[in-house]
């Protein structure tokens, strides 16, 4: 059985790398204990600070193609419960679950005293680590906290420094993506001695507008406010930022990956780019703590198949495979190949190639070899007379050969862009296959430097 246990950022231990992110699923001790019972390895407590007042409503989402919550947006603030209640429950949880990670997410006013005070109290309660919430993009930022700190390297460095003066447990800085270059903030955190990074926090968003009332969502008495976007939609953005942080010597710290992680597959991808743990919120808000079962099971099965015995075995393996564009091989050539036996004849590849790519997929396997344009193809269909097939009236009439709807790729013209394979609804019906052109590897950098190949 592959071992999922992790030791993160110089000492935070958890039975697996799956933590609840600082959010409603980690709001109180009762919830966190149920989450641990379900299998979660750790929890970053809903951010603790002077209790706030929330609005209703608080969430809105983006649905896509009939699926709910492709992206989730919230305008909720930090914990609305007293600091002492949160800390007392942290102590309770740690007593009952000593092997699980409990991290206190903190946000207080920007004074050394306030930070020293909350750090001391959190550690006294038994927190295994501290996560500094410099990322919350709404509400708190208007009061000089959250992303108002995380968008200014100097503030980040200063407050992280204050925390490090006091902290005995590992200190994680949670980064906001709402910034031009996330590395600037990470470098500041690292300069101040942070032990790890949590990335990313939510992305500034307006999810939509009600087209009946013309009011934006979430609706608070006719008005709305920008919120923080998360869920499956943000995963690619988060992966890129995680990679940016890993790829930058001055930023590089242990990373707890956050952003659209809902399955073990998502988690594996974050770990492959270097994350030591991952944090989950939206998937739990959507389906409950039970999603952890397949996250653990699926990850272990995949690790077993791949021969990995621990998280460290594969952590960061894919990071070197992301490089700058000018290091890519310009002489690498692939073309699309349509596997006729799998093709269902939807012709989505055809129209995607004609209208969205390079006009090199054709419907010419039967009949005329002329390269008909999409409008000509449609016009021919509209001009065809079709009748309801009635066996006794249509003796011996056969239908169209299915081959007529199977498109053909002009491999000389195909640029290997992947679009047809991406739109094809059938798995492995269109594969991208390497064409041997006997040309040496050559990058843009090689071309600019005049070197024939590297």
């Amino acid at each position, binding site marked *: 059985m592959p071992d999922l246990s992790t030791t993160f950022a110089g000492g935070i231990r958890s039975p697996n790398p799956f933590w609840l992110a600082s959010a409603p699923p980690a709001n109180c001790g009762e919830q966190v204990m149920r989450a641990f019972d379900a299998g979660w390895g750790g929890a970053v407590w809903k951010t603790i600070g002077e209790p706030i007042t929330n609005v209703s409503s608080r969430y809105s989402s983006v649905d896509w193609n*009939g699926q709910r919550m492709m992206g989730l947006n919230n305008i909720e603030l930090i914990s609305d419960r007293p600091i002492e209640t949160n800390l007392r429950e942290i102590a309770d949880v740690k007593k009952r679950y000593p092997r699980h990670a409990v991290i206190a997410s903190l946000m207080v006013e920007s004074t050394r005293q306030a930070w020293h005070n909350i750090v001391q109290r959190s550690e006294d309660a038994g927190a295994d680590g501290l996560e500094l919430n410099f990322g919350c993009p709404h509400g708190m930022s208007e009061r000089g906290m959250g992303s108002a700190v995380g968008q200014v390297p100097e503030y980040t460095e200063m407050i992280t420094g204050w925390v490090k003066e006091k902290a005995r447990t590992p200190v994680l800085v949670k980064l906001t993506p709402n910034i031009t270059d996330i590395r600037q903030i990470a470098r500041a955190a690292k300069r101040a001695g942070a032990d790890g990074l949590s990335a990313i926090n939510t992305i500034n968003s307006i999810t939509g507008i009600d087209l009946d009332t013309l009011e934006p969502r979430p609706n608070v008495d006719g008005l709305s406010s920008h919120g923080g976007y998360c869920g499956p939609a943000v995963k690619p953005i988060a992966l890129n930022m995680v990679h940016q942080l890993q790829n930058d010597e001055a930023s590089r710290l242990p990373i707890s990956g956050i952003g659209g992680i809902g399955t073990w597959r998502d988690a594996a991808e974050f770990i492959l780019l270097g994350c030591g743990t991952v944090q989950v919120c939206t998937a739990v808000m959507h389906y409950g703590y039970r999603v952890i079962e397949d996250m653990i099971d699926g990850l272990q099965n995949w690790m077993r198949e791949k021969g990995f015995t621990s998280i460290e075995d594969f952590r960061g393996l894919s990071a070197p495979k992301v490089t700058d564009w000018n290091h890519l091989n310009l002489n690498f050539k692939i073309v699309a190949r349509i596997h006729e036996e799998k093709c*269902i*004849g*939807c012709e*989505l590849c055809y129209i995607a190639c004609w209208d969205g790519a390079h006009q090199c997929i054709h419907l010419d396997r039967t009949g005329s070899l002329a390269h008909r344009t*999409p409008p000509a193809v449609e016009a021919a*269909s509209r001009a065809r007379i079709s009748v309801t097939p*009635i066996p006794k009236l249509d003796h011996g009439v056969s239908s169209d050969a299915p081959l007529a709807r199977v498109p053909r790729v002009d491999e000389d013209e195909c640029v290997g862009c992947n679009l047809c394979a991406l739109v094809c609804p*059938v798995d492995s019906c269109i594969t991208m296959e390497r064409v041997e052109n006997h040309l040496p590897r050559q990058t843009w950098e090689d071309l600019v430097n005049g070197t024939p190949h590297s």
Partner: protein
Amino acid sequence: MGAAVPFAFQDNAEIARRFPDLHPAFDPQEALTEANRCLNCFDAPCAAACPTHIDVPRFIKKITTQNLMGSALAILDANVLGASCSRVCPVDVLCEGACVMLRYNKQPIAIGRLQRHAMDNFLERGGRLPTKSNRKRDQRIVCIGAGPASLACAAELAQQGFAVTVIERRPLPGGLNTYGVAEYKLRPPDSLREVALIAELGVEFRFGISIENESDLAALELEYDAIFLGIGLGAMHQLRIPGADHPDVVDALEFIARYKTAANLTVGNKVVVIGAGNTDIDAAIAARRLGAAHVTIIYRRAESDISAFGFEYEHAKLEGVGFEWLAQPVAIHADPASGRIVSLECSRMGSNFQLPCDMVIPAIGQTPLSLLERCRGPKYYSGGDCVNGGREVVDAVADGKRAGVAIAKSFEQCHA
């Protein structure tokens, strides 16, 4: 609802209770989920398979954006009887049978029910058929018969600005849509509501007029610039066996028209239907729904030879209809005392047997009308069952629309 339906029809609660929708309407969430399943094929095979070439992905994707009005107009653009077609079309052998989903072991998209969803919304919101031209045209066209072919032809011409009259021998328009389609697929009020859309375009309807002979046609030729014949098929073949003139021998179309118009809801207790076409299935199921304890379809050939669609045959079995294969009707026997039918005598491979029954419903094909033979000349156009041998509503609509386009074009050419 839009303008009041000008065609009065008294709904019958008993009929409604006995014939609930075979394919119930989608609720909006179901429709959205189903519409989202559609792959939005390019040059979609469903659209190609549809005789009227409704752009199926186009109307389905409009459902996903909740542009339901646009969805219905996309349907009506191709097929003015989109509402009835959504309910009566044999989608298994048309659009849904062509769905690419079938090629990878997935359920085809429920195109018929999605089309109904869009059309129901259109009708509920009082939608009207759009016109295609603001120009008033001088020519006058008459359509003979108020069935789907004539309605489609009339609508196309009226949308283009022509004055159109529809002549019908029965008291209500719609043809088989009103009088002949199984009630659980399409009810007369729904058929009539759809015809009302065409009346709203300014098409004039005249009922109770029968066109029988050359002098009737000559009068029409004098009055109109073009004549469209959408007269359907003629009466059903007579059953020519002893006893076939008994009053409880009722041909299938007559039987169906009677109950649909609530003129007569009586049915025997043991009913035999002769023939295994789609109309026979409709009649047999109707007999069951109306209360017959036993309904048997007899067919002179084998199970594999039936002309009904496979899904209709399966439906009949589910409704409890029995089948006797290789059985040829020989004679109908009545009890001399009561006068009631007691059995249908059949022969199977040389030996005769008695099928106890008290009602016989023959449906052994229809005779083409001879009127068609006498219509010659450039003013005549035709479409639907009277020329295609008896297909589906959607085929008649396609024919009628093509004729309408051709008629309009013929006048353009005259003026050129």
